[in-house]
């Protein structure tokens, strides 16, 4: 429901995994395989000279510090900022507005999502099939979508639970004069497990 970029999540996990796999395998190979070990020892001297040469050539006049190191610090800071943005973008997508009517000559109408949320929650709490309910509104592809999650008492048929919520949604459609897309999430969980089993309906 939320606007989390799942492809980005998976990409980050994949890149980290690939990096660990390559580095780990290289380290293990460097000490275990004699051929790799010799090659590693040969190249490590060259790499040290090469990097020392670069640091020498890129000295900044005046301070005697290579700008390569400063660039490395700058890259690290940019990477940290990108990662913080990445974390803060998780789980977003709530919206406070359920409906906006196009402006007419008499003005415009905006219906806040709390109207729909409270109406549904009140209607659902009256039913003994549910031990709890929660209604929220998300924006999915620029359309506000209601998320109605209900926790069922043990033994309630999911079909019946869906039918009850759907009837409340139809009533809400009548009230608003417009059909809001909706998701019904029927769950069990701890609260369902510790409450009484449903009576036969």
């Amino acid at each position, binding site marked *: 429901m939320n606007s989390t970029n799942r492809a980005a999540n998976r*990409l980050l996990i994949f890149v980290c995994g690939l990096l660990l796999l390559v580095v780990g395998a290289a380290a293990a190979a460097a000490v275990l395989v004699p051929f790799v070990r010799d090659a590693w020892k040969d190249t490590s001297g060259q790499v040290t000279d090469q990097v020392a040469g670069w640091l020498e050539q890129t000295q900044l006049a005046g301070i005697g510090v290579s700008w390569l190191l400063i660039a490395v610090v700058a890259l690290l800071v940019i990477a940290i900022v990108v990662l913080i943005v*990445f974390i803060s973008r998780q789980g977003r997508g709530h919206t406070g507005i359920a409906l906006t009517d196009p402006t007419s000559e008499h003005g415009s109408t905006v219906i806040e999502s709390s109207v729909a949320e409270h109406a549904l929650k009140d209607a659902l709490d009256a039913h003994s099939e549910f031990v709890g309910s929660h209604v929220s509104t998300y924006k999915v592809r620029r359309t506000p979508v209601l998320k109605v999650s209900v926790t069922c008492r043990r*033994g309630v048929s999911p079909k019946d639970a869906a039918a009850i919520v759907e009837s409340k949604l139809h009533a809400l459609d009548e009230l608003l004069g417009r059909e809001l897309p909706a998701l019904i999430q029927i769950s069990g969980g701890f609260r369902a497990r510790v409450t009484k089993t449903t009576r036969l309906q």
Partner: protein
Amino acid sequence: MSSDNKALYARISRRETHSPRSLLAIVLAVVLIVVFAWVGTEVVIALLGLPALLVAPSDMFTSALGLAEQPAAIVAAAGIVAAVIGLVLIILSLSPGRRARHVIDTERAATVVDNEVIASALARHASYAGNVDPDNTTVSVSHRRAVVDLTPTSGIPANRDDVTEAVTAQLDAYGLRPTVRARVQIAEKAKVGA
């Protein structure tokens, strides 16, 4: 409106039945932030000519290159552990990450149901059809299969066909996607006074 909603509902249903892998991604991002911040701080400290916090950048560099001279057992073990963690991460990033949920066909909304709810509804009907105490009925629902385990009361045989029929009728009525098949197992040994 309903044709737009179909695409919308398909997207929502897919996202609700699969894990976003958010927790793992956030943990990795935090670890990376800490490592980057530490390396950056060490570099800045080295540039200022102050003593290093933990390891100076030049020491990091030389010890990474001089890996082959370090004790082989430690390096090999650490490398293999890192490679295995990397492999697990790659598998997690590519696997679908299904949640224990099913989609129900409804016309007004997209509906997802936890497997737990399906199981407890099936258990109620199975115990009623098999004339078994609800406490002696166990149902587990997975992606494509529902396994019903009944332990009958001594002296009162449970009819397997009745139970299978009742459970199958319930599953058909729910209209789950993907479809779930029922398998009923009745324990050989009954319980006394259950």
